[in-house]
C-alpha cells in the first residue's frame, strides 16, 4: 500500500531525470555541479566588479578626473565593494567548499543536497536582483557597509550562504 501511495505521488510530483543539458544543470543537486555553478557565476561577477574597479581607477588617474560624476562614482564604488565581497569572494570559496570538501572526506554528497541547490539559486537571483537596480537607474550608493536601497535583498546571497552553512 505504501508503494501504491508512492506511485501516486510520483505522478503528481515527478522528479526530473535529466543529468545533462540545460535541465540537468537547472535541477541538479550534485555538489560538484553546484560547485561549478558557483565558480562560473562568481567569476562572471568578478569580471563585472573588475570593470567597476577599472572605472574607479580611470576616474582617479589624474586630479579632478572627468570620467564619472559624483553620483555615478558613489554607485560604482559601492557596487564594486558589494560585488567583490558577496558575489565574488564568498561564492568562489563556496565553489571550492562545494566541490572539494566532500571528496576530501570521501563522501558521496552533501547532507542536504536540495538545500545546497536552493542556496545557489538564492545567491544567483540575489546577484541578478542587485544588478537589476542599474536598470531602474539607482544602484546602491551608500558604501558596502551602508544604508543601501534594496539592502535586504542586496545581501540575499549572504542569507543563501547561511543556508549553505546549515546545509553542511
Amino acid at each position, binding site marked *: 500500500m505504501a508503494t501504491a501511495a508512492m506511485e501516486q505521488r510520483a505522478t503528481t510530483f515527478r522528479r*526530473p531525470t535529466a543529468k545533462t543539458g540545460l535541465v540537468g544543470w537547472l535541477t541538479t543537486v550534485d555538489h560538484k555541479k553546484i560547485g561549478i555553478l558557483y565558480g562560473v557565476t562568481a567569476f562572471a561577477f568578478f569580471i563585472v566588479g573588475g570593470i567597476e574597479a*577599472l572605472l574607479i581607477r580611470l576616474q*582617479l588617474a*589624474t586630479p579632478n578626473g572627468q570620467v564619472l560624476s559624483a553620483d555615478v562614482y558613489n554607485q560604482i564604488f559601492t557596487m564594486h565593494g558589494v560585488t567583490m565581497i558577496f558575489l565574488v*569572494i564568498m561564492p568562489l570559496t563556496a565553489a571550492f567548499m562545494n566541490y572539494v570538501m566532500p571528496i576530501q572526506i570521501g563522501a558521496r554528497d552533501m547532507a542536504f543536497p536540495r538545500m545546497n541547490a536552493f542556496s545557489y539559486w538564492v545567491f544567483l537571483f*540575489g546577484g541578478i536582483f542587485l544588478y537589476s537596480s542599474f536598470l531602474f537607474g539607482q544602484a546602491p550608493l551608500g*558604501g558596502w557597509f551602508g544604508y543601501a*536601497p534594496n539592502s535586504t535583498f542586496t545581501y540575499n546571497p549572504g542569507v543563501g550562504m547561511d543556508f549553505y*552553512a546549515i546545509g553542511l
Partner: protein
Amino acid sequence: MTLLRMPVFTWMTFVTAFLLLFALPVLAVGLFELTFDRLFGANFFDVTAGADPILWQHLFWVFGHPEVYIMILPSFGIVSEVLPVFSRKPLFGYAAVVFAGAAIAFIGFGVWAHHMFAAGLGPIANTGFALSSMVIAVPTGIKIFNWVATMWGGRLRLTTPMLFAIGLVAQFTIGGLSGVTHAIAPHDYQQTDTYYIVAHFHYVLFGGGMFGIFAGLYYWWPKVFGRLLDERLGKWNFWSLFVGFNLAFFPMHLAGLWGQPRRTYVYPAGMGWDLMNLLSTLGAFVIALSVVIFLANVVIAQRRPMDAPADPWDGRTLEWATDSPTPEHNFHEVPIVHARDDWWHKKYEEDKEGRPVRVPAGAADDRDQLEVGARERGIHLPDPSYWPIVAASGVLLLGYGAVFLKPDPTGTAWGVGGIVLAALGVIVFLSGFFGWVLEPLEEPHGSHR
C-alpha cells in the same frame, strides 16, 4: 575519517560554516530593521526618534569583522593544502594550524569596534578593542610561521598553484602587518577613512583571498574538468597579477598616509598624491591583463581533450584518489581512512631513514577505469529536483515586490504592483517548498530495488 585526520581545507570550511552561522543572523537582524524603517516607517535607526546613532555600525561590524575571516579562512585552507603537496612534506604543525584557524574565528567576534575607533566610544572601549585586535595577530602569525616551516627544507616545485600560494603568504603578511597598525587606536585616528585602509584590505582580500582562490583554481582544475591548465600561461598569469597587484595597491599606503581620503570622486592637484594615483591606475590595468591571460588559459585548456591524470600533483588527500574529472558518485568504493594525508600513505611507505618510498605500482591503485555509472553499481544518489530553483525564484519575486511596495520614497502611497509581486513571491516560495516536501525520495527506477 576522524576530526584530526580531516584535511585543513575541510577544517577551514567547517570553521567558516560556524562563522557564517553566528555572524549572518546579526546582519539579517540589522537588514530587517533597516527594511522595516524604509518600508513601514519603523524607528530603529531614526535618531530624531531617540535611536542610537551608532546602532547600525555596531550591528554591521559585529557581522562585518567575522565576515573578513569568512572570506580569508577558506583561502588559508587552500594554501594549507597546496604548500605541503609542492614541498613534498606534511603540513608543519597541523594541529596548530587547525586550532589557530578556530582561534581566529573565536577572537574574530570580539574585535568589531576597531572599525569604529573614530566613532567616539571612549578610551576604555577603544583600549579593549585595540588589545583584542592585537591578540588576533597571534593565531594568524602561527599560521604564517607554520606555512614557512612547511616549505623549509622541502623539495619545492614552483608550479603555478605553488606560486600563488607563496604569493598569498607574502602579501597577506604585508596586509596583516598594516592591519596591526590599525589596532593601535591613536594611529588609527590618522589612518581612518584614508587610502591606507583601502591598501590594507586589498592586501588581505586580493593579495590574500584572491591569490588563494587562484591557487585553488590551478590546483583543482584537473580534478574538476579533467584538464590541466597550461603552466607557461599560468606563470605569466601569476607574475603579471603579482606585479599589477603590488603596483596598484602599494602606492595607496603612501597616498593614504599622506592624507588622501577614500570614497571621494575627485581630489585636487598639488597635494602630492598625483603620482601614486597614476601608478595605482596603471597597476589596475596590469591586473586586468592578468585576468585576460587567465581566461585565455581556461579557453585553451577546455578545448583540449580530457587527459589529466587522476593524481597530477602527487597529492596527499583523498580527492586525488578518485578519477579526474570526479565521477558522479565521487568514489567507486567509499575509502577507509587510516591516517592524516591518507592518500599519501597509501602511495608511500618509509625506508629506514624515514624517506618516502613508492609502494609498488598498482598496489595503491584501487581505481578501475570501467565506464560504469552509479546506478549500475547500485550506489544511491539523490535525484535532481525542480523545487530548489522554484522556491528561490519566489524569493526573487518577493524582493522585487518589497522594492516596489513604496514607489514614492517620501510619500505614503502603496504600490499595488509591489503588493501583487510580493504576494506572488510568497505563493511561489511556499508552493516550491510544498513541492519539495511532497516530492518522492527518488523516482522508481527499478534497477536496484
